[in-house]
């Protein structure tokens, strides 16, 4: 049983570009959350998707947007990249009905903005 998978593993972009990160949740999970982890910091919540809609959002600008597909996979899009967007982006999934009451995290996508 595969866990949470994210692609790509690493990505290099330049300022002003746009980027799309992808996440496949753990089998049986229907809720996906995205986190940004800057170097030396703890993860920060970006947003959560459930039933293809954004349900909760952290303190991130509108440049950060997402999507969830019918198969529960998700994308994180960041427009007009800034140097400060360089970070590890983590995807987490949780099960239907929250029965397990915990998040399963992927290994992340390391984004570098030059």
């Amino acid at each position, binding site marked *: 049983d595969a866990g949470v998978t994210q692609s790509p593993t690493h990505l290099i972009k330049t300022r002003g570009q746009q980027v799309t990160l992808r996440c496949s949740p753990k089998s049986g999970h229907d809720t996906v959350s995205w986190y940004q982890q800057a170097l*030396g910091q703890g*993860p920060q919540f970006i947003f959560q998707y459930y039933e293809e809609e954004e349900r*909760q959002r952290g303190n991130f600008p509108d440049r950060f947007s997402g999507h969830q597909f019918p198969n529960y996979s998700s994308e994180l899009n960041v427009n007009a990249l800034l140097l400060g967007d360089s970070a590890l982006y983590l995807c987490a999934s949780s099960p239907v009905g929250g029965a397990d*009451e915990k*998040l399963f*995290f992927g*290994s992340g996508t390391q984004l570098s903005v030059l």
Partner: protein
Amino acid sequence: AQSVTQPDIHITVSEGASLELRCNYSYGATPYLFWYVQSPGQGLQLLLKYFSGDTLVQGIKGFEAEFKRSQSSFNLRKPSVHWSDAAEYFCAVAPDISGGYNKLIFGAGTRLAVHP
């Protein structure tokens, strides 16, 4: 605003020694509390969680944590550290119980080094 503080940025212990990692939170009610571990190149793995009930919770890999409401603390402990425990440890709180446990606030982390 809700916050999580991990006062120790970096801790070094000898293999076999005991360990305590500190965590303080700022929140009005009793939140959901978590400890996660992150090894290099890997995602976060849940060690243990506290929602209610017994204030001493047992987790995986021999870790335990104690919730102390009076001190707003949720410290992580292990009686005997193994070299494989070297990693980054994060304390987290889910401040909005109505929103479930998907929106977590994390501390800045404590990096644990283990000497042989």
